[in-house]
């Protein structure tokens, strides 16, 4: 029992870590093909990481611990989230600790660490990116928390394993107005949190328009590899969390090896599908004016608020 649970946790972390660069590669490849380009192939992010890891570590003069610790903190918090969140199994040794608020806090810790690192460089771009990143984060976090509350009301708990387990047993609940509204709000928040279009443009070379990239401009070599891996893992974990909440079918609720294996395969397929859909949609999106981003995020906050209201009324409590 416990051994399979531990194996599930390990499998989730390994799958997220190894699969995140492949997910990023798939998304870039989808975009390239839709734009009529050949594209570098799905494995390119892994090749980039290998290249960066072989390089000499360089830290800019005058930077302190915030700059050096941020990449580690980003990767480790995301790995912890990957372990906690019921991506493949709801019965793991840590599923009792998989509180939604804890997950949001861990993700916020990574964001703040990166923003502090941006400030630590003392460059105009670092400060500018940190300022923009924090503005976006300040608008995203309430949305995520509110959507979490909406999802936790029917389950009577903020524990993710309980919420997801409920969803597997009672799929009708997923299609309830509250569930749909909360999922929509979360989806927008995930776009903003991971720096995708229309909030941030991950493929831009224009330093003055960057949000996430501006914070990490000073990183090089293995540190940059960690930052990139961390960002890719965040995208993979958040897309995984979104599928767990919105389409939890196939997630192992019992401790059987066969169920776990099936869950892992399904997880890979669902995240790949969602990533491909996102990449395809992004081709047709443009980046919002920076001062319009709060309007978008306010919209998603409103959806989350409606989700909370709806779940109060519809559960009749």
């Amino acid at each position, binding site marked *: 029992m416990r051994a399979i649970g531990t194996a599930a946790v390990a499998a989730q972390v390994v799958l997220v870590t190894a699969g995140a660069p492949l997910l990023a590669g798939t998304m870039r490849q989808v975009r390239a093909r*839709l734009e009529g380009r050949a594209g570098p192939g799905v494995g390119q992010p892994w090749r980039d990481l290998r290249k960066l890891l072989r390089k000499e570590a360089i830290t800019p003069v005058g930077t302190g611990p915030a700059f050096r610790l941020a990449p580690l903190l980003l990767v480790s918090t995301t790995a912890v989230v990957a372990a906690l969140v019921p991506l493949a199994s709801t019965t793991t040794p840590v599923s009792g600790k998989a509180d939604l608020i804890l997950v949001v806090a861990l993700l916020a810790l990574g964001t703040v660490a990166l923003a502090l690192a941006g400030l630590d460089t003392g460059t105009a771009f670092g400060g500018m990116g940190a300022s923009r990143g924090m503005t976006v984060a300040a608008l995203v976090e309430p949305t995520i928390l509110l959507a979490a509350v909406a999802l936790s009301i029917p389950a009577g708990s903020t524990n993710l394993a309980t919420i997801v387990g409920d969803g597997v047993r009672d799929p009708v609940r997923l299609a309830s107005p509250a569930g749909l509204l909360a999922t929509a709000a979360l989806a927008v928040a995930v776009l903003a949190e991971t720096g995708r279009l229309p909030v941030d443009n991950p493929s831009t070379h224009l330093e003055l328009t960057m949000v996430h990239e501006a914070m990490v401009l000073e990183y090089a070599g293995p540190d940059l590899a960690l930052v990139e891996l961390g960002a890719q893992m965040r995208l993979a974990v958040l897309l995984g969390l979104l599928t767990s909440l919105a389409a939890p079918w196939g997630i192992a609720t019992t401790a059987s090896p066969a169920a776990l294996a099936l869950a892992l395969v399904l997880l890979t397929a669902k995240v790949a599908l969602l990533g491909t859909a996102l990449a395809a949609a992004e081709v047709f999106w443009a980046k919002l004016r920076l001062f319009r981003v709060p309007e978008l995020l306010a919209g998603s906050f409103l959806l989350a608020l409606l989700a909370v209201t709806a779940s109060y009324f519809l559960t009749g409590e």
Partner: protein
Amino acid sequence: MHTTTHRTVTDIGPDELPGRAADLLVGGHRLALVAAHHDGPAAPGGRAVRVVYLFASGPPDTRTELHVRLDPEAPELPTLAHLSFPAGRFEREMRDLHGIVPLGHPLPHRLVRHFHWPRGWYPMHPEAGPPPPFAEPEGPYPFLEVEGEGVYEIPVGPVHAGLIEPGHFRFSVVGETIIKLKARLWFVHKGIEKLMEGRTPERGLPLAERVSGDTAVGHALAYCLAVEEATGTEVPEPARRARALLLELERLHNHVADLGALCNDVGHGVLHARAQHLREQLLRLNLEVTGHRLLRGGVVPGGAALCSVPGTARMRVLGREISDLVTLALGHTTVRDRFTGTARLDTAAARDLGCLGYVARASGVAADARVRHPFHAYGRALTVPVHTTGDVLARFLVRAEEIDASLALVEELGDRLSSGRWTAPLPPGRAPGAGTGMVEGWRGTITTRVELRGRDPLLTRVKIADPSFFNWPALPVALTDTIVPDFPLTNKSFNLSYAGNDL
């Protein structure tokens, strides 16, 4: 005072200059170019520093030159900066390159000379010699500091993240709003005008084609027109027609690339990819027409050469695809929102700064050398689109409409052309001569003035004024109160040349 076909030359003293210039400017002329010459003892008027002010207006095509002779030991001029903003910039350029002092200039800062340029070395002076080693800089070259609560500076460049020419931009911002932008250019001084000296007109052409790589036809044509006027060459009619065709082909490939780049700067990558595909087709067409993807070699002194003429059916297919691209871009809510109202340049500012080309036409100033200084009778086929809002959207729309106008012109011009080479030989021995060429390149009006001397004439002085020289000061003006993340989009909507600005 003497007059050529459409050019009037008047010799005046330095004291008369401000009055004469004011009369011309009030009379509807614009200052097209200022060129300084270091005349030796063998020159017609003896040894002197001679400054030529070229004023132009049209239609009808009128060009008026004021020649001012100065003491070669201590050349000093009364400034015209209070009459014309471009005059003040030409004076600063002249002081940095020739050592001519504008007296009473309101903004006597350096323009071309960077911090490391040696003190007292003026590269355009006849005795300048090769560049000396960097030593004894002229002193500090500070930026204006904006003070106040919450103001901070963002320095960007001269090395950028993308493949962009070098330029340093210093933003003073509060939050995300730009309070002041200072653009420091002149990182690419190549000494093109100096390299022109002593060349034959034929050998000057490759240099003219390379003033700004994307404007090979525009600069080559302005140079050739100037050489032809100086030598009294009559260009055959088919050659004039072929030149007009090449000029529009150059406008097409540059404007299409810009439309895509503007979409890319708001993160709409698929339209950029589509525009790149169309640009590649146009570049391959250019290769067929002139043997060079950027249309080099089509315009030659005394004539023009075409390897083939673009077919009507092919141009119509391209035209439809380009108009699809424009419709898709303007139909996208986010793209349209990003363009609308961004970085407005109002009409008064565009006129005062002497803006040219699509930047001027997007701000309601209908400046176009094809109308004002035509080298070919365009007739009714030429339309000049003008917008008045002065924002990024207006600059996008002007480009889009100019593409339609250029396609119509290409069809009309190509109709009566076949492949061939039409040149008139430059008549020898009519030296010394001077001539001016004014051409509506894709960025705006290019003005080139040449002076020739000798039986087999050699270039003694070539002065080139790219429209970017006039338009660069408009960029910070348009950006006031714009937010920092909109700067790249605005910069692309101006798309000014660094190389053409800094010769």
